[in-house]
């Protein structure tokens, strides 16, 4: 009994110390604009009642850092898309392989995109290339050729840029990689999910890293993964959900 009292006492004390006010998963509307329409996805949803997405990328896609791979952003993306479009068969295929950079992902792009009849590929890339200090021009070329290989197989592309976490922020030129990705997206006419700016806004609004980063300082934790999945679903729904297409031609550039 005494032990119980002590434990409760300590727990209450720890609560006042560690309590974080209900964290909010948020991003401004402007940050959620992918900047390019998703025609194939929109048509598939409207006409065939289906939407297939391949999530290509590294550990963020695989879900490392979440306490449970079902919290990985692709699993969460599927959950939210399905919830928002009950009659549509939503499928998100996770092709995240931890530790890979743009170059390694380009090598398996063809193999991993083929055969799924996907309308959309979300390519989460940039972080490992930045950490390995890949030259920017080489990185840009790899992203270009990845897009070319993938698009030749049918689907449209959305690039997801770097995560805003201590290990990335400490790099001297992480913003250069984000900039290059935005340029390539524009040049190639593909969407860009600006994860870096979305997460930076969390931090600048006072959200502590512990809220959204795994304690290795590099990967997203449960909250981070879930929130990115939710926000990305919002970005995609803005473009593919039939009822919102009435005010459509809002091509971003």
């Amino acid at each position, binding site marked *: 009994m005494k032990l119980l009292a002590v434990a409760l006492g300590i727990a*209450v004390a720890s609560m006042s110390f560690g309590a*974080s006010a209900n964290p909010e998963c948020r991003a401004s509307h402007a940050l959620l604009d992918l900047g390019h329409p998703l025609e194939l996805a929109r048509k598939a949803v409207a006409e065939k009642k289906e939407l297939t997405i391949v999530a290509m990328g590294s550990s963020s896609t695989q879900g490392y850092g979440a*306490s449970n791979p079902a919290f990985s952003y692709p699993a969460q993306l599927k959950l939210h898309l399905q919830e928002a479009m009950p009659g549509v068969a939503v499928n998100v295929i996770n092709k995240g392989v931890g530790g890979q950079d743009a170059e390694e992902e380009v090598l398996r792009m063809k193999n991993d995109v083929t055969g799924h009849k996907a309308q959309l590929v979300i390519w989460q890339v940039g972080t490992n290339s930045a950490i390995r200090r890949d030259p920017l021009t080489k990185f840009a070329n790899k992203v270009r050729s990845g897009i070319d290989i993938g698009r030749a197989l049918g689907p449209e592309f959305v690039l997801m840029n770097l995560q805003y976490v201590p290990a990335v922020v*400490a790099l001297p030129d992480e913003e250069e990689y984000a900039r290059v990705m935005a340029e390539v997206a524009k040049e190639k006419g593909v969407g860009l999910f600006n994860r870096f700016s979305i997460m930076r806004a969390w931090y600048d609004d006072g959200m502590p890293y*512990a809220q959204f980063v795994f304690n290795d*300082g*590099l990967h997203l934790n449960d909250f981070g993964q879930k929130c990115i999945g939710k926000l990305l679903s919002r970005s995609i729904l803005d473009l593919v959900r039939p009822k919102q297409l009435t005010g459509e031609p809002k091509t971003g550039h």
Partner: protein
Amino acid sequence: MTEAVPAYLQPGRDLRLDFFRGLALWFIFLDHIPDNVVSWLTVRNYGFSDATEIFVFISGYTAVIAYGRLLLKQGWLRAAARIYRRVWQLYVAHILLFVAFTAQIAYVSITRETRNLIEEMQLLGLGQDPYRAILEAALLKFRPVNLDVLPLYIVLLAAFPLALPALLRQPWIVMAGSIALYVLASTLNWNLPGYPEDKVWFFNPMAWQVIFYTGAVLAVVAPKLAWMDRWHWPFSILTALYLVFAAFIALSWHYNSWERLIPDWVSRQIYPIDKTNLDILRYLHFLALAWLVRRAVRPNARFLKWRIFEPIRRCGEHSLQIFCLGTFLAVTAEIIVAQFEEPMMSQMLVSVGGIVIMSLVAYGASWFKAPPPAKGFVA
């Protein structure tokens, strides 16, 4: 505090091992409940390493105590056979845990007709291709949420008979080999394969073995390190400084104003603090912690025998059962917390409730084993 003979030749039970292993088991339980406010009590918030290091270190230490003497008395074959009996027990426990864990989630999903809980708990591999998943689980390659620690321990102990004879004769060579493997595995990214494909072990055994063998070697060489106690101030000051530094970094994750004080070049050196390959910062943090705890807590320290801490020691004595139970209860706790509006209150209640259940079961296990034979340890 200067041990005259190696730990594995000393008579009697070292209560520190029971106490800190019990504490580690409580911490692991608390940390396994997502977003648990009570896990603010655990080490992981105040530095780089967490309860896993404590658990694996003590496992290595006690493995030498349990099997070192046996090797000297009855030879290698017998010691190896005993180790494999233990490996078998661990394996059976892991498989039982896997089934109980899965059944619990299936039960809740079926009775509540919320099938997505199965998805939530990432038993997806099981749903998509159940036969394959069961095969991979038997091979320790498919390990759903939180079922990563026992497979690590199984692999470490299965390799232990090969190292044990050398460990007793040439501990420093074993330590050097262990560190070499650690460095190679983490730089060359060696790891064991997992399931689904492209997955690897969350706790890379080739990296984490260095903690296990640090414990094992210390159980042999401690008397030879007595000189460190005479010159302990430099070590103690250095380790204390390092712990303060680590605590500052760890707490900076909670306070942006602290975080902004850390210069980029420092961050560039520390991050990422890899858990899978046991980042050197984690290893050093654990060693620093272990050094200071060893300085502060003598084997015969009074508080180790306090009644109020008896539940912790009991849990440490029955580590395998309590570890499995804790993993199981952490999921129960997660499911319960998800039902309630008031997460903090329910987190505290399930945390305390889980620890009470773990303690009661540990007492039950002691009662079952009584009268306690006063001989050796079980690793």
